[in-house]
């Protein structure tokens, strides 16, 4: 049984301007210890679906219309808030996008690192402090005793994100959800942080969901990938398969729009024309149709089918069989 299984999750936001269909029936699974990526551009619903899984979407304005989220054998969507709270930070933890703003400026690093341990694991201050020192060591922060007494403004962005990772692993969770954990960091630091997260989660056997817009991250670190567009998962499969043999026009577009070292020189980077649809006004048929170079009439009328290839590579597209290269 999968550690996390999201089935048909549908999340809307009720706004004065109308109903925004942010997540439209997505399903994915995460096995224990696995590294799964969720890829998509801004507004694709990738972040908000993760917040829904952790019960962090305020309702209202949010409204979970349908679906089920099962984590470690427990159905989360119907779980009372008090029990959900005991899972948060304990069994599932989260790393956020902006290390500069995700630490509380007026509380010491030590305090922010130990409070979840003291609450969930009922550690004494001394034991929690001791563990905090070893956690900071694990995430590669030198001189941890001194750092514990410092405040966020004493630390660089990369160090802060290391602290956030230490906070995330503090209570030995089963799953970490990392929302664009490196987007706000310098490129060189990005690689360090990702390698650290991969290494730690492998070593501790924690499953990791990385939410990103960066296919490069996916290719290097993820076991499996889900590509999201307009609140739907349009393609998923083993990271290597999706990268080498993309089966959905959107994924192909994404891959063509980033520079790659494994492509012959002189091949131009092709951006995807147009912009993502407004989730308040979704048209019938495939949401990607207006931007799709392979579009046929049918795409604009009918929901695309979900096509599964023999290697568990799945794409939701009318044209997918024609698009997918036979071998990588």
């Amino acid at each position, binding site marked *: 049984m999968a550690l996390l299984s999201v089935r048909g999750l549908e999340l809307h936001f009720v706004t004065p301007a109308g109903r925004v269909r942010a997540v439209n029936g997505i399903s994915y699974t995460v096995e224990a210890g696995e590294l799964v990526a969720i890829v998509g551009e801004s507004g694709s619903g990738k972040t908000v679906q993760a917040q829904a899984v*952790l019960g*962090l979407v305020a309702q209202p304005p949010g409204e979970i219309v349908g679906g089920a989220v099962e984590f470690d054998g427990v159905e989360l969507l119907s779980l009372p808030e008090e029990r959900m*709270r*005991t*899972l*948060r*930070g*304990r069994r599932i*933890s*989260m790393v*956020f996008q*902006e290390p500069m*703003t*995700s*630490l*509380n*400026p*007026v*509380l*010491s690093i030590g305090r922010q690192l130990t*409070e*979840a341990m003291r*609450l*969930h694991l009922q550690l004494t201050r001394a034991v929690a402090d001791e563990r905090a020192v070893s956690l900071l060591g694990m995430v590669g922060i030198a001189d941890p005793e001194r750092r514990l007494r410092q*405040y966020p*403004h004493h630390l660089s962005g990369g160090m802060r994100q290391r602290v*956030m990772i230490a*906070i995330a692993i503090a209570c030995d969770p089963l799953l970490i959800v990392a929302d664009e954990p490196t987007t706000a960091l310098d490129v060189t630091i990005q690689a360090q942080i990702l390698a650290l997260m991969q290494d730690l989660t492998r070593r501790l056997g924690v499953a990791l969901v990385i939410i990103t817009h960066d296919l490069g991250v996916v290719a290097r670190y993820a076991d499996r990938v889900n590509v999201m567009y307009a609140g739907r998962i349009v393609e998923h499969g083993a990271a290597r398969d999706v990268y080498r043999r993309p089966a959905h026009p959107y994924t192909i577009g994404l891959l063509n729009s980033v520079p790659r070292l494994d492509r012959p020189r002189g091949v131009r980077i092709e951006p995807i024309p147009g912009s993502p649809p407004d989730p308040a006004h979704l048209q019938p048929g495939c949401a990607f149709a207006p931007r799709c170079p392979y579009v046929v009439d049918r795409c604009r009328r009918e929901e695309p089918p979900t096509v599964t290839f023999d290697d568990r590579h799945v794409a939701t597209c009318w044209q997918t069989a024609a698009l997918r290269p036979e071998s990588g």
Partner: protein
Amino acid sequence: MSKYLLRRTLGAMVVMWAVATLVFFMLRAVPGDPFTAMVFDTGDPTAAEEMRRAFGFDQPVYVQYFKYLVQAVQGNLGTSIYGSRVPVATIIAESFPRTLSITVLAFLIAVTIAIPAGLISALYKYSALDHGVTIVAFLGLSMPDFWLAILLIIAFAAGLGWLPAIGYAPLSEGFGAWLSHLIMPAIAIGTPFAAIIARMVRSSMLEVLRTEYVQVASSKGLLRWQVLLQHAFPNALIPVITVMGIALALLMAGAVVVENVFAIKGLGRVLIQGILNRDYPVVQGAILIVSGIFVLSNLIVDMLYAAIDPRIRYE
């Protein structure tokens, strides 16, 4: 830190010197002087001249000014020009504890009410409770303090007879007596202050609740009160303290007016009487003390900043 305090103290002295100078010359810029009026009834013009000489008012203004400065630095604020010529320092020493009692009590009452009210308003945004707090806050802000003072006297002294309408009892006569005399003036001047603080707590808290670190705190599975009081509230307090420092002026100004309504011989009443009588040394002394209080309370606010926000360090 000690260097910083030294710099602040020097700054305070400059401010107080400027205030003293301004007051000194403004008082004398008004035509005429108190002595002519004082001896008007006697019909003896030489009496006024004599008094002027006795107080040194016959000397050129700049001489008077430097004498005043030199004496003030030595702690000698002169004497009242009326009656038994009580030293100004004595008058202030008598009246200041009363004003201080009123303002401190007003501050405590205001903050005790305003902070919970503001927090509730923020947490239950747009609820009936929030609207209620908002309406009360605007009422409190729009009511002149002396008018509120009169209403309080009508209700609790004249009507219900629970509290004495006027006067003051020092703490030495018992806490109850002290409080019963001060509670109405304190409420009267604390109300607009409380209204401002409550509104400020609300907006500041709402802003902080939207920040990412509060979301992070929730994602750690902390208890709701921990997220609100340990993570959000200290951050929300930083701008509130700024406003508190500025709004302290409201309390002092309020005290001046409200002391008259309640016939409490505090600093405000001394000041107003001094102005009406053109009792130069009393006015100069009282304003100097008020400016000193302002400078001191600003310093306390800045110290509070450093205590709450580790990013602020004074060197």
